């Protein structure tokens, strides 16, 4: 694998994603973790771009970074005082979690390495047409119409449910 600009950028994104994710799970300050998560999400969006999923990358940025992350930050603000900003971590739990996580990772990597059909699938670098139009076709006029509608209802339910759960209880 020769070293090209594309490759470098890809590795850069990959590194960015993994490193920032590592920061998310290790950093003590929750606000830092949130911002680090934002970097991770951007990194993933970059990887989508490499996969030539332009619409998906855009959605990732808009929804995650613009929506979910803000939501998380709101959560942080509303539940934690200043003292609570620091995430409490227990040493024994950390150790056990690390062990099981590592075991899981080794397992996954073994599976990935040992699956023959996945080995020689490489990106030849040919440009594909933009996906937005086809996704629109698939969602609004194709096989994914029903799932789309169902997910819409799901969102509505989640919205109302969240509002119901989080509102102050009215004791009557």
């Amino acid at each position: 694998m020769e070293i090209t600009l594309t490759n470098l950028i890809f590795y850069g994104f990959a590194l960015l994603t993994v490193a920032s994710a590592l920061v998310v799970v290790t950093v003590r300050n929750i606000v830092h973790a949130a911002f680090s998560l934002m970097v991770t999400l951007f990194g993933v969006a970059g990887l989508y771009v490499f996969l030539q999923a332009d619409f998906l990358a855009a959605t990732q940025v808009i929804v995650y970074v613009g929506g979910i992350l803000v939501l998380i930050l709101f959560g942080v603000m509303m539940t934690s005082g200043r003292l609570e900003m620091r995430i409490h971590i227990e040493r024994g739990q950390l150790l056990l979690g690390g062990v099981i996580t590592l075991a899981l990772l080794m397992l996954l990597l073994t599976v990935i390495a040992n699956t023959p059909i996945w080995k020689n699938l490489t990106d030849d670098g040919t440009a594909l047409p933009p996906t937005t139009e086809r996704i629109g076709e698939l969602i609004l006029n194709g096989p994914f119409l029903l799932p789309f509608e169902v997910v819409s209802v799901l969102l509505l339910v989640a919205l109302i449910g969240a509002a119901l759960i989080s509102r102050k209880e009215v004791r009557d």
Partner: protein
Amino acid sequence: MVIPLISLILLCPLAAFAIFGLLGLAKRSFPRQDYLSTAAMLIALGCSLLLLQEVVPDPEPHTLKWLSLGSVTFSMGFYLDSVTAIMLIVVTLVSSLVHIFSMGYMHGDPRYPRFFAFLSLFSFSMLFLVVSDNLLGIYIGWELVGLCSYLLIGFWFEKDSAANACKKAFLTTRVGDVGMFIGMMMLFTKFDTLSLYGEGGIFAQAASQLNTGDMVWLSVAGVLIFCGAVGKSAQVPLHTWLPDAMEGPTPVSALIHAATMVAAGVYLTARMFPILTETSSLVIAYVGGITAIVAATIAIVRFDIKRVLAYSTVSQLGYMMLGIGAGSYVAGLFHLTTHAFFKALLFLGSGSVIHAFHAMHAHAHDDEHGHGDDDAHAHEHDGNHASEHVIGSEIPPDQDMRNMGGLRHKMPITFLTMLIATLSISGVPFIFSGFWSKDAILGGVLGRAMEWNSVHHYLLFGIALFAAGITAFYMFRLIFMTFFGEPRNQEMHDMAHESPKTMTVPLIVLAVLSFPVVNTLWFNADYVTPPEQAHLHAPEHAYVSPDSKVGEAGLPFSLFGISEAVAAEEAGHDTHGAHADDAHHGHHGPAHTIAMVLSIIVAGLGILLSWLFYHKRSLSAASVATTFRPIYNVLWHKYYFDEFYDGVLVALTVWKSRLFAQFDGTIVDGIVNGVGKVTRDFLAVFVGVFDNRIVDGLVNQVAQVTWSIGGRVRRIQTGAIQTYLFVVLAGIVLLILIFRAL
């Protein structure tokens, strides 16, 4: 017709009692129990009279299978022969009259209805006994009679003496019943049945087994069954209950003495006649003879009018037993019948006298004990009261003959009827039934003696003759003391009055019956034939039979007919001898002639002496008593029977009880306590340890283990969601690893 009639006879009194009992459950009583019971009895009497026509010579029993136990079947049934028929009439007749008499006598008693209900049950029991064809039925009736006598003797149970007397009667007869039961069981084991008549009955079997093997066991069984009769019929030595039974109301005494209780014993002995062996017959004869003389001598010195009669009954019952024991089957039953009537009459008469005094008894009672009693007592008896602790020794003033006298003007009907009965029992010749029946027995005994040339029977004849004389003496003593002479207690005398009609009518009826009326059935040889005695193989020896033609001629109770019969006898005329053995019949004529002459002589002597002592007063009873002090004392104390029972049997029983109690207390209790101690101190401790350590230990251990496991496992449920997730992941990893490895 036989079955319905017998059923009716039995059911009527039973129904009368049942109505009382069932209503009693509902805490009510029939408004006129007296009419009900009396009517039931009268119906039974009517049926009994109708039954007379149904009697056939050699009847079959009417039986019904009652219950089967294994291979043995008990049957219940009726047996109607001439004896049954006559007994039925006697029982129902006397019972009816007693019922009627009781309406007057018991009037105003708080338990008036109950009295009649008991009378009905009593009659039913006796009737059931009479018609039963098997020993089991007889035994049932027997015990019912005992129960009823207990209830009726103790009818006035508020009185201690009555309560004691009824217990005494019950227990004393029980002694005999045990013997009877053993005898029954002996017969049962031998013959496998308790039925008496018919094909497989005891009598048929006994007759067929006669000559095989020795008959000792049969003698023993006979004597044992006779034990029952000894108890019921108050023979020596179990006679003591009967005089004490006077504590019951007088009508009950009449019923017990005449028709039901005591008659049952004689009836049973007569029923057993076919299986009585020579030995057992002799035992019976001796017991009867001894009873006759013992009771008669005791009666001489009694002052209580009812007790004189009671001892007289015992004595007469002895006669009957003597008759049956001497083989004079018919004579014994004949005397039972005649005695039933005149003794019922005597008792009801005495009841009438007592009733006359009874009205004022209440207020006279207090001062009576003060003077009148003791004066009379002292000079005959030296004030020997101290030892008089035996039951019933206290004479109620209204029954004490020393308070009576001169009553013949006050109570003419009572006097006349009682006089007739007394003449009858005393054996005044020819026109009174008692003479014939007593003479039949005497003649029978003498006949047997002459025929067998037996010392025993000569002796028994002598005893019986002596007793006959004494009987005449004490009976006239009673009459003289009660009805003749000057009133000894003016106050009581003034109050006395003739009894109401309900009481006098039965007296008159019974007085009529004291002449040989119904009794003539016995005179008829064709009507009553004695059963063959198994051991004799010969017809009865001593059967008194005035000419059988008397009955057939329809002149049964004419003086003429009887004289003719006697004449026929004297001529040695064989009246019934178709089946008789000629060898011994030669004795009959002379035996009866001799017996008759002798009995007339002794009866006359007795009456004469009585007249001299108690009416003319030319002889002093007191001086005779003083002269023969020891004999008098023995008689006054009734041969010390009660004292003997008290001092020996009771004391022995008490001593034995103490011994057993001690045995119980020390040895039995010791063993029990020892076992208990061993159990408690060793076994229980061991078991306790086992229980505590091992059983409880196991249980606790299981609980402990469960508890601790639970305690540990509980920690898994941390409630921390992350732990759960951790476990889930670990599981996934493990699963994947495992399946990868595979």
